[in-house]
């Protein structure tokens, strides 16, 4: 971060990031997360934000994540068809730490070679005029998902709230949906283990996944989700219980936003109506529900 000082915005980001890292380091010491962000330092940083962060935060909130969690809980009170989950990722704030990637792997008990949220890191320009972009890539939960139509057995569909899900007990593992996804998001579970080649199977390799609110054991190499295509569901199993997707909770840069687009008061609805928002591969007509801010 040291050599980005020339730029005001980067300077700010650097301080902002440091504050967050400091906050994260303190977290074990303080039981209530909202108290943490009420420390003088953090509040000052948020207030100095040049966008309208205060508008986003609104009311008495000092922690954007708690605000978004309440957005989610408010949305859950509506019938499912009235919700439209969406995610926004602020590329200016993403530090490329892969905390989201790892949290997702832990949350969904993903085996080696399966990753729902890789972070694409791209360098733009040549030295000394160079910048770097970190682009986390979850499932776009498209409004027009090409992966759904191609499935030969209707094992994947779009939930009423917009999340594209897979029926692990129906998927035949033909992998046609993987070829149809313009974002190369979907992943096949080959049944591999992190401890392959070691004399013992490590306990972390036996951990079940709780996707779709069920317990999916990995004891037997021929039963689901092994042999299935898998994908990010915005942590539907957490969302349905009123919790934010796991990738949001671990983001140290605060680069992630989530909520119900149909709720005009939600953080996400305010964010995606701005000019500096784009979506990946708009030309494909897939109408993704993941927005990028730059």
């Amino acid at each position, binding site marked *: 971060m040291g050599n980005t000082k020339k730029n005001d915005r980067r300077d700010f980001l650097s301080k902002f990031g440091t504050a967050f890292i400091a906050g994260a380091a303190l977290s074990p010491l303080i039981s209530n997360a909202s108290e943490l962000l009420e420390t003088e330092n953090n509040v000052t940083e948020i207030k100095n934000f040049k966008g309208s962060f205060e508008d986003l935060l609104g009311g008495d909130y000092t922690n954007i994540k708690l605000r978004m969690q309440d957005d989610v809980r408010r949305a859950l009170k509506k019938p499912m068809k009235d919700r439209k989950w969406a995610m926004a990722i602020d590329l200016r704030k993403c530090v490329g730490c892969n905390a989201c990637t790892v949290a997702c792997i832990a949350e969904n008990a993903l085996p080696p070679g399966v990753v729902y949220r890789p972070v694409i890191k791209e360098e733009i320009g040549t030295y000394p005029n160079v910048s770097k972009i970190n682009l986390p890539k979850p499932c776009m939960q498209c409004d027009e998902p090409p992966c759904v139509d191609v499935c030969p*057995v209707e094992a994947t569909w779009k939930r009423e709230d917009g999340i594209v899900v897979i029926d692990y007990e129906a998927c035949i593992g033909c*992998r046609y949906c993987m070829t149809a996804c313009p974002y190369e998001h979907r992943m*096949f579970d080959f049944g591999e283990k992190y401890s392959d080649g070691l004399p013992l199977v490590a306990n972390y390799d036996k951990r079940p996944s709780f996707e779709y609110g069920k317990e999916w054991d990995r004891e037997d190499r021929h039963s689901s989700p092994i042999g299935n295509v898998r994908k990010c569901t915005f942590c539907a199993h957490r969302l349905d219980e009123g919790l934010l997707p796991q990738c949001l909770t671990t983001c140290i840069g605060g680069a992630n936003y989530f909520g119900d687009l149909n709720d005009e008061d939600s953080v996400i609805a305010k964010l995606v109506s701005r000019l500096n928002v784009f979506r990946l591969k708009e030309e494909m007509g897939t109408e993704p529900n993941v927005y990028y801010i730059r």
Partner: protein
Amino acid sequence: MKKIFYILWGIAFILGCIGVAQRFMYGHELANYGNRVVWGLWVAMYIYFIGLSAGAFLLSSLVYVFKIKMFEKVGKLALITALVTLLCALLSIWFDLGHMWRAYEVITRPNLPHSMMAWMIWLYSAYFLLLVLETLYAFRIESGKYDGDKLKSYQKKLGILATIGIPLAIAFHGGVGALFGVVAANPMWHSALTPIFFLVGAIASGSALFTLIFAFFWDNKKGEYYQNMLKTLAKIVLVAVLFDVLLEWAELSIALWMGSPEHTAGFRAMLFGQYWYVFWIFHLLFGVVIPVWILATKKNGIAIGWASLLVAFTFIGVRLNIVVPGLIGEKIPGEASAYIQPRLTYNYFPSMMEWLVGIFIVAFGIGLFYLGNKYFKLTKENNSVKS
């Protein structure tokens, strides 16, 4: 000669069984396709065999629909070839499934009318039934047990089935091509030419397979019939191969002329990538140049047989060059280095287990055909009683 064949077949079958055992024991763990190149050798083998089947079937229609007298003696041979290669195709794709025992779902819960794969499955299931029925009637008619009204009714039924068979074979193999063609996310596959290319490829490879079987295994190689038939078959193969190359040129030249990166990445990988020789040497030299030269200049059975063998065998290269290069490009720049893991690389070369299972499928097909031929005497000139 026969002994060598038996020994080679035995070795291939045993090796194949090892591969199949590995596939059943370890699932997909030993396969080299991954989460980027998601389809590999088995999918290529699937479209290869299904093309052979459609091609052989369309040849059989020359007898049962167009009543071309010359082909009467080989009608059954063409039908059995189509049936055996279809079984090989189904076996290939079955091994490729993540959950093999859920394969029945494609019939019980098809995603119609949306999924092109579901369409293809239903069309080839119908084709499979039709093929079995047609073979049954063809054998009944030629068995000599029936005469009068019964024979006429069988002939009529066979005629109707075979007529339905033509659009069905075109639709189902065009459907296999469309399965690739509709994938808008893959610019190399996403072309209106793809289904047509599949069909023409089917006729080229299927007729080549049939010609090689006829050239090498027909019992009466001295007869006039053998010579005449070979000349005709050689012409069919020659025209089909040349037309296939024309389509290939159309696709390649249009894509490469403008050179938009997304559209050409797959073709560039195919022509100049790591496995360039599959296109230039395996396909173009051994699958087109040499056989075309032989078919255009030589008239003897063995030469035509070898040329057809080259076309039929090297066509797997064409099929591999559809599946693999289409998948080895990043769809989003930077993807390759976003998460480093063997399953997330854009390189693909089939693993030992994949090859062994491939060998099993080929050995299975050859064995089945051999048994069929032995039992039904398909390649005996005098046994193929005229209807």
